[in-house]
């Protein structure tokens, strides 16, 4: 079984996170980020490593790029049939990789650049893409779309991230946002689909911690048609962002208020009545979307990167700025790998997002 855990149970675990972005959209290759995440080697256990990179496919920037892993040729044939029916496949190729002694049992790894412009009028393109992803992941055995955004892609495998990075030759890609993940799942079953990041459209999430409210978060998402096929906390986190930001059109910072909801005592003490009304309504309406328990995440979203901690900061997170660069990391030391003397280093507060946006025109 390449993609599904043998046990039909949720993966959970602790991990290391790293994120870098250039607000000016300056791109750099993956070497530095690999080194940075490798510096937190102890936070992983070799059962999963991965990266998300934004800005890597400028020549295909208007196409949705699906990164897909297959357990067998049949899954690939069936998926390609589905893609052929629903999209115009502008280009497809194997995701380049090189043999690495520490990376074994690799699935078939393919990417597809999909043109959705041929859709009928009135069809919401993003919704159309999301349902294709859900249909493949839930419906085709041994097929897993692991990223589906534009001009971005995820690279992940069972292994330590530094090995995964070399396996995927990330020194060959240039990105203005890199996020990285070293996984330490409690469940000793290693499976490729369970590595981070988890992605949907342009959203990618790398995540540290275990979501104690997973059960209700998942059931809540299912009422909106999301199919949680991967049995991991992180999948839920991505879909919550997709629901709140894309479907419900909440600003990112407001979505963070839902996920890491402020305490009632602090809402009650709010003097700005409009803010109090908003926050009260958010907690009432999105009670089942609150993410409870320890977490730190880095979200990539196309034109920026966001770090967020749980409401009482049970997982570590450090941020730094240097010039136009924003760093977010589980440990400060990893930042120093890329930047010896950042201009500012700080510890974000519980539940308060650290957000970097691309500058206009970047």
């Amino acid at each position, binding site marked *: 079984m390449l993609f599904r855990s043998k046990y039909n149970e949720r993966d959970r675990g602790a991990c290391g996170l790293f994120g870098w972005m250039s607000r000016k959209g300056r791109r750099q290759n993956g070497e530095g980020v690999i080194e940075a995440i490798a510096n937190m080697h*102890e936070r992983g256990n*070799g059962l999963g490593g991965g990266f998300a990179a934004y800005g890597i496919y400028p020549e295909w920037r208007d196409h949705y790029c699906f990164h897909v892993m297959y357990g067998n040729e049949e899954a690939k044939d069936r998926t390609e049939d589905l893609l052929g029916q629903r999209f115009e496949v502008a280009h497809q190729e194997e995701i380049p990789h090189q043999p690495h002694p520490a990376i074994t049992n690799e699935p078939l790894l393919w990417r597809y650049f999909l043109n959705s412009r041929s859709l009928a009028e009135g069809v919401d393109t993003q919704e159309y893409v999301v349902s294709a992803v859900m249909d493949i992941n839930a419906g085709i055995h041994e097929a897993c779309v692991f990223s589906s955004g534009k001009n971005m892609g995820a690279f992940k495998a069972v292994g330590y991230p530094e090995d995964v990075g070399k396996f995927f030759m990330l020194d060959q890609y240039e990105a203005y946002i890199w996020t990285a993940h070293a996984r330490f799942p409690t469940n000793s079953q290693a499976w490729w689909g369970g590595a981070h990041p988890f992605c949907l459209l342009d959203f990618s999430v790398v995540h540290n911690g275990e979501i104690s409210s997973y059960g209700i978060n998942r059931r809540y998402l299912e009422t909106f048609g999301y199919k949680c096929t991967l049995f991991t906390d992180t999948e839920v986190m991505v879909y919550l962002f997709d629901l709140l930001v894309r479907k419900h059109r909440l600003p990112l910072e407001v979505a963070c208020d839902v996920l890491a909801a402020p305490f009632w005592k602090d809402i009650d003490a709010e003097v700005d009545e409009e803010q109090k009304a908003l926050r009260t309504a958010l907690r009432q309406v999105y009670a089942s979307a609150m993410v409870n328990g320890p977490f730190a995440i880095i979200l990539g979203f196309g034109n920026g990167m966001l770090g967020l901690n749980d409401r*009482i900061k049970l997982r570590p997170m450090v941020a730094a700025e240097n010039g136009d660069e924003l760093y977010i990391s589980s*440990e*400060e*030391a990893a930042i120093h*790998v890329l930047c010896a003397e950042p201009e500012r280093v700080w*510890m974000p507060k*519980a539940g308060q997002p650290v957000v970097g946006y691309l500058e206009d025109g970047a």
Partner: protein
Amino acid sequence: MSEIIETTSGSAPEIDNEGLARIDARGIHYRRLNELVREVVRRGARRIEIVNVNGQRYIAVGLQEKVRVDIHGVPGNDLAAFCDGAEVVVHNNAQDAVGNTLNSGRVIVHGDAGDVIGYGMRGGEIFVRGDVGYRVGIHMKEEPRRKPLLVVGGTAADFLGEYQAGGRLVVLGLTDSARRGTVVGDYCGTGMHGGALYLRGQVDPSHIATKFVALSEANEATLADLKPILKQFCELFDYDLDRILDERFWVVQPFSHKPFAGGYAANP
């Protein structure tokens, strides 16, 4: 690749006439680094200077010898955990869990330190020049012959001194972040049932767990008690004592040593 213990520095470093040993930590795994530290201590080093540290965990864990370890670079988590006599000086920021269950000795951090600093301290001293994160000084305790001390030059985030059962926690609010807000985050002293917590500067009373503790302004006697500690802080970090005293101090003290006695009933 899993569990490779890097051994880039083959043999242990020299110890000079003054008892000083220098270790270059660049690219060394923590396990080797600590082996080197223990080795030079065994060979009689009194001072160890470690340079190019970046994220190695557990440095000086459990050291019982009265040696001084100077760290240049950002050390990893659990620095000086269970330490029992050594003096550990960090010349940069430190990460989470500094001085975890510290027994005795002293840890000095010239920058900021992360979350859960001094967890369950039994004795010894921790001085941080900058800010600290969440859950600092949790469950500090004391015995007749041991009384731990944790001094923070900047600010502390939420849950400072949660479960505090003894010892002293001091937060001085001398950094920029104190100017931007209060010196201590929310839920300060929650579950506190021993020891004392001293805060200097602006405090939001709603952040103090008044179910468990009383917040009051420090009187002359308290300030006199604090002075030796503040002097030590000033010497370590080159501050002017008068400047520190030129601001109000607050004392947070528990109402009771057994605050939870009333909440239970016997199962019939």
